[in-house]
């Protein structure tokens, strides 16, 4: 017994030391896993605490339509690319919903909802743009004006997405110098895949539809040696030289890596989103509101905990002190885990944490009430410890297992149906309940044993135990 509790004491002290280090806001916790850098220096705060924007997009298809999982995944990746352009530190983009037909985008700390939603919702117009003979194409990434004349007979998307002059009589002569003419849009492409040339350099193979074939064939045979720009949403993504007349199928070679080739092929295939998306929910939380909620709940928590500590000390005396230390251990380990996993702390998450703190306190109270009973029945303190603990254990175990069951079901529902509040609550409660079980099982017991073993005076003073 002596040896075992000493071992546990060491485990607890080590766990505490690590937890304190992790929880301290000044700690620098950056790990490198493979080529990924993981930064855990800060708590991950939910949008409701740090402010930010959340947008829920849904596939805008008639009811009953089968949702193509691959198309949804591609749409998600396109949205991801667009969002990355906003420069948000840790955006989250996930597919959600029973039919996986929703994409949720979270932009923590981002404050311009207009820009965010405009960026996410842009329809994604892919154009092949004519670079006049002898001219160099604009640099990759440059934003250009394009004009889509009707004569190409390839759909340029609906008029709203074509900001160029709508008049059909407009010709290239009357347009400002910087406006390029669109040869055809992504609709003329049948497919685009990644391949490799003889040297193994990645390139892109594409095939054309009948219309595309006709337009592209005629144009490329007349313009060998000229540049042709591939433009997505008015941004140049590539500008290869026309090396031969292209009909039916062609290749784009350039300075590609496997990744950039894949990305371009994806954009060529799905330049416009493969699934139309509509915004079905959006939430914008100003940073001041989140900060205010956080500060107030922190202050309330501090006041509440102070009163709890005072009450525990006054009512349970020595065990009260042990309970306070055990709860402190519980709190630090739990918070350290929240930071490391990381668990997103929202208001719902804090409620879950609060509830598990309650059950950690309850476990201590259960043990001490049993201890008092055993002491009143005339047992010595040393003899009372084991039975007190054994009798309190089934109730602690069963009530916490019930809580864990509730957590698992809530979490499952939350993730399957995209109810992030339910999910946030379940995660913090789950972690909290597990740690509170550990604290009841190990920490309170070890501290109690240590007190009895090391401070021999306590045996003669049952009043210290509130008896």
């Amino acid at each position, binding site marked *: 017994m002596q040896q075992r509790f000493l071992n546990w004491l060491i485990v607890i002290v080590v766990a505490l030391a690590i937890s304190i280090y992790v929880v301290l806001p000044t700690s620098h916790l950056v790990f490198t896993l493979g080529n990924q850098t993981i930064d855990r220096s800060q708590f991950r705060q939910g949008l409701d605490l740090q402010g930010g924007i959340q947008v*829920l997009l*849904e596939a805008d298809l008639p009811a009953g339509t089968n949702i193509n999982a691959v198309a949804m995944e591609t749409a998600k990746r396109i949205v991801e690319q667009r969002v990355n352009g906003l420069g948000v530190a840790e955006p989250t983009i996930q597919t959600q919903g029973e039919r996986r037909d929703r994409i949720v985008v979270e932009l923590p700390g981002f404050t311009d*909802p*207009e820009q965010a*939603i405009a960026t996410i919702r842009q329809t994604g117009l892919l154009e092949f743009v004519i670079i006049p003979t002898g001219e160099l194409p604009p640099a990759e990434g440059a934003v250009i004006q394009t004009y889509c004349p009707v004569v190409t007979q390839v759909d340029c998307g609906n008029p709203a997405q074509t900001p160029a002059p709508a008049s059909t009589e407009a010709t290239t002569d009357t347009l400002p110098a910087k406006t390029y003419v669109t040869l055809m849009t992504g609709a003329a492409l049948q497919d685009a895949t990644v391949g490799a040339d003889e040297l193994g350099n990645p390139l892109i193979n594409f095939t054309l539809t009948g219309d595309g074939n006709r337009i592209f064939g005629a144009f490329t045979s007349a313009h060998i040696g000229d540049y042709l720009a591939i433009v997505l949403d008015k941004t140049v993504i590539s500008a290869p030289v026309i090396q031969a007349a292209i009909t039916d199928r062609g290749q784009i070679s350039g300075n590609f890596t496997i990744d950039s080739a894949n990305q371009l092929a994806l954009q060529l295939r799905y330049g416009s989103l493969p699934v139309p998306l509509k*915004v*079905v*929910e*959006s*939430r*914008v*939380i*100003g940073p*001041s*509101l989140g900060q*205010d*909620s956080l500060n*107030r*709940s922190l202050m*309330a*928590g501090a006041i*509440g*905990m102070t*009163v*709890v500590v005072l*009450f*525990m000390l006054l009512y349970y005396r020595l065990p009260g002190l042990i309970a306070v230390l055990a709860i402190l251990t519980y709190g630090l380990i739990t918070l350290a885990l929240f930071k490391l996993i990381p668990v997103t702390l929202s*208001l*719902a998450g804090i*409620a879950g944490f*609060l*509830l598990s*703190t*309650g*059950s950690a*306190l*309850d476990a201590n*109270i*259960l043990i001490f*009430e049993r201890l008092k*009973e055993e002491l009143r029945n005339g047992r010595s303190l040393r003899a009372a410890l084991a039975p007190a603990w054994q*009798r309190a254990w*089934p*109730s602690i175990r*069963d*009530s916490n*297992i*019930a*809580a864990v*069951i*509730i957590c698992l*079901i*809530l979490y499952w*529902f939350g993730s399957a*149906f995209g*109810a992030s*509040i*339910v999910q946030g*609550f379940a995660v913090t*409660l789950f972690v909290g309940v597990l740690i509170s079980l550990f604290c009841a099982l190990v920490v309170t017991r070890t501290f109690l044993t240590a007190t009895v073993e090391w401070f021999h005076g306590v045996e003669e003073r049952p009043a210290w135990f509130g008896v």
Partner: protein
Amino acid sequence: MDILGKRYWYFLLSLALIIPGLAAMGVWGLPLAIDFTGGSLLEVQFGSGQAPPPAEVTALYEQEFDITNTRVQTSGADVLIVRSPFIEEATRAEIVRAMEARFGGPVTLKRFDSVGPTIGQEVAARAALAVGVAALAVVVYIYFAFRGLPHALRYGVCAIIAMIHDVAVVLSLGAIGGHFFGWQIDSLFLTATLTVVGFSVQDKIVVFDRIRENSRIYRRLPFEFLANHSIVQTLQRSINTQLMTVQFLLLALALFGGVTLREFAITLVVGLLSGTYSSIFIAAPILVVWEKREWTRWFGRRAEAAA
């Protein structure tokens, strides 16, 4: 201490709380927020002393954007909350600009929630389903944990009846608060309800655990006496746990938290109090009523039982 002897009084007290609440729900309806009904909520901060009266904001929505059915609420100094049918982000931006133009000064966006109508209903239905499935799982678990006792299933069922009681108390509070203080049943309220459900089940198990333990020790005692004794033995723990979790932690939140958190904290205070109350005064008494099959005598001896 005879707690269970007056069990019908407790049932009466609970009914006296819940029935008006349910009636309030029936008459006024639950004040469901846009999280569940769909719609938009715009919270904006005006410059000091520049917040316009609510009626003018309603007028602005109607005249410039043709949006009727708005409800405007002041919240703290210079902060307005406008609830309206579903609007898009682009419209929201125009509204804020129109506010700046009409009422002067910079208007800061504090919060904008916009929920499509189908999404809202889904969330409500699924949260209810989640709680339902969780409750069922808890019944099964309690049945398993108490399998050594006769009629183990009863413990699970009674725990769930008491849990439903607590949820009913919370919803009643929501309905009444909604009517008199403009409270809204929003996702934060849903969180509070989940917390109450979790706490309630844990609390019931602790009390039932004592009955489980005592029924092994005192095999021959009548069940009512045994249950009563168990409640008395756990009473101190019930009170202390209740004080710790609810009164100290949450009253602090209710007193010092912000406006949004206050509703949340008050809901929790009432719900968790009900959670402890229902363990002692609802769940255990129903066990006794069930054990003694008292309903067979309800009609002949109602007056006596209630006296």
